[in-house]
């Protein structure tokens, strides 16, 4: 009997193993990682539900797929689900999950009064797990379903998804147009393969950048080690998507821009001068 199960593969999953290991250490429960042979949420939710029904706690990364799958698994098992958690606390055999509400303006400590307790964890909010992992293999049988996939595309955009990047270089309206994005691309290139590009909502609404790069309350919610906000005023809706960043650097010509209220480092100046200067300085230091 394994009390805690981590569902799924990938780097998001390896961070979730830290949560499983942490809870296991404090409760004496055993944990393992459940490897999925397939991941189409509509076809395999019921099969995943069967695999995890005897566990006490089931964890998954709060990726688009993870959240969709767990929502379906939760309904199949008729149990509550805490999505997008950023932390946890163990009190005896009771586990409390911490999740942001109201765009991160408030944090809630929630207890799930059901078995199994299902939770997804926001990518990058947990340390990567370095220890050994017990793997459970399950070949899942798809349920009959009516969903047809007309086509499927992988990639097509940036090399690194913004939610997985260590460093995110993000542009706002202050960039003045898509033709200037090369200065952000140069900075991101200088910062190495773990850097990705993002943007604010007006930028994706204007079609300057793909919608997948939109970061904010109604876009992607990210927690990189460093977030560089360039020409972004810092509306609350944008800040809701980046508040989990370990370090926020803001570049804006308006010294009163609200992004400076949440920034760890702020450079007041013309981004068209500041960004190339930063890129050159970073290259010189590498």
């Amino acid at each position, binding site marked *: 009997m394994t009390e805690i199960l981590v569902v799924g593969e990938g780097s998001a999953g390896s961070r979730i193993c830290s949560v499983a290991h942490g809870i296991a250490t404090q409760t004496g429960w055993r944990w393992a990682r459940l490897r999925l042979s397939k991941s189409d949420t*509509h076809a395999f939710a019921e099969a995943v539900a069967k695999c995890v029904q005897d566990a006490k706690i089931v964890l998954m990364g709060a*990726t688009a797929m993870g*959240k*969709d799958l*767990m*929502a*379906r698994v*939760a*309904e199949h098992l008729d*149990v509550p*689900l*805490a*999505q*997008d958690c950023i932390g946890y606390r163990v009190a005896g055999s009771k586990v409390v999950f911490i*999740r942001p*509400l*109201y765009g991160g*303006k*408030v*944090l*809630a*400590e*929630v*207890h799930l*009064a059901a078995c199994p307790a299902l939770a997804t964890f926001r990518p990058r909010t947990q340390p*990567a797990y370095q220890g050994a992992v017990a793997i459970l293999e399950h070949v899942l049988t798809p349920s009959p379903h*009516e*969903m047809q*996939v*007309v*086509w*499927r595309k*992988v990639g097509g*955009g940036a090399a690194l*998804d913004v*939610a997985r990047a*260590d*460093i995110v270089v993000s542009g706002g309206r202050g960039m003045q147009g898509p033709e200037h994005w090369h200065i952000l691309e140069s900075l991101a290139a200088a*910062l190495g393969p773990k850097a990705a590009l993002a943007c604010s909502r007006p930028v994706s609404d204007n079609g300057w950048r793909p919608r997948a790069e*939109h970061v904010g*309350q*109604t876009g992607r919610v990210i927690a990189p*080690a*460093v977030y560089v906000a360039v020409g972004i005023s810092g509306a*609350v809706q944008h800040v*809701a998507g980046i508040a989990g960043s370990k370090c926020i*650097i*803001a570049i804006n010509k308006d*010294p009163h821009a609200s992004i*400076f209220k949440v*920034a*760890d*480092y*702020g*450079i*007041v*100046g013309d981004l068209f*001068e500041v960004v190339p*200067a930063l890129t050159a*300085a970073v290259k010189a230091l590498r």
Partner: protein
Amino acid sequence: MPVKIAICIKQTPDTEARIRIAADGQSIEEEGVSWIISPHDEAAVEQALQLKEAHGGHVTVVALGPRRVERSIREALAMGSDAGLHLVCEPMPADASVIAGALTKALRPRGFDLILTGEQAIDLAGSQVPQRLSIALGWPCVVAAETLSIKGRMVQARRPAEQKEALVRFALPGVVGVNRRIGEPRYPSFKGIMRAKRKAVEVDVAQLAEGRMIIERLHYPPAKAEGQVQSFGSGIEDTVARLLAGHIDTQV
């Protein structure tokens, strides 16, 4: 062919609203909060109206919550929805499975072809209601839809997920959870607002199960230390460049 659409909306505090924790430590102070239709849901209302305009049909706005919620139902009626259904309860349940259960009970006997809703509400961000509805009803479901169209009885939706993307298709009845990025909602016209006053809003008591996601305590996120904000040329750019460069070296 005409489609009978239910659009489930949630009333949430405005994204700009200041959120204060109430004295009980488990809920928020509602006094002084301005309420809106959650943005993803508002985009779903727009999609419902566009489908009705293209194919004919009927759009019912469904919302669960206390009396204040009626204003949001009227707003969706003013945008062009045909009828409203208000499932009354006070306070609003914190457990999304309870909300989905009450919606399922109300929607099942009413014979809808398509249930639309936002992929998540911006207040408690439960991110599970469309999926739960679909499984309870035994219908197919796609979430985070960024395009939506109907041909005959077939629904087609584009669903991006991180760096992947798929175009999926299923036969009605079904559930679609849309993302705000699917398109801007319209503003109600003056005529729409006047008409909305005469549209019927059915009021029913929400059938709530006991909540099993229990909010034990709310707290504010730890306050952030004040940052170092200086003008370009003061040397701050060197500090930032060193920080960025240092990060390249230490990353795993």
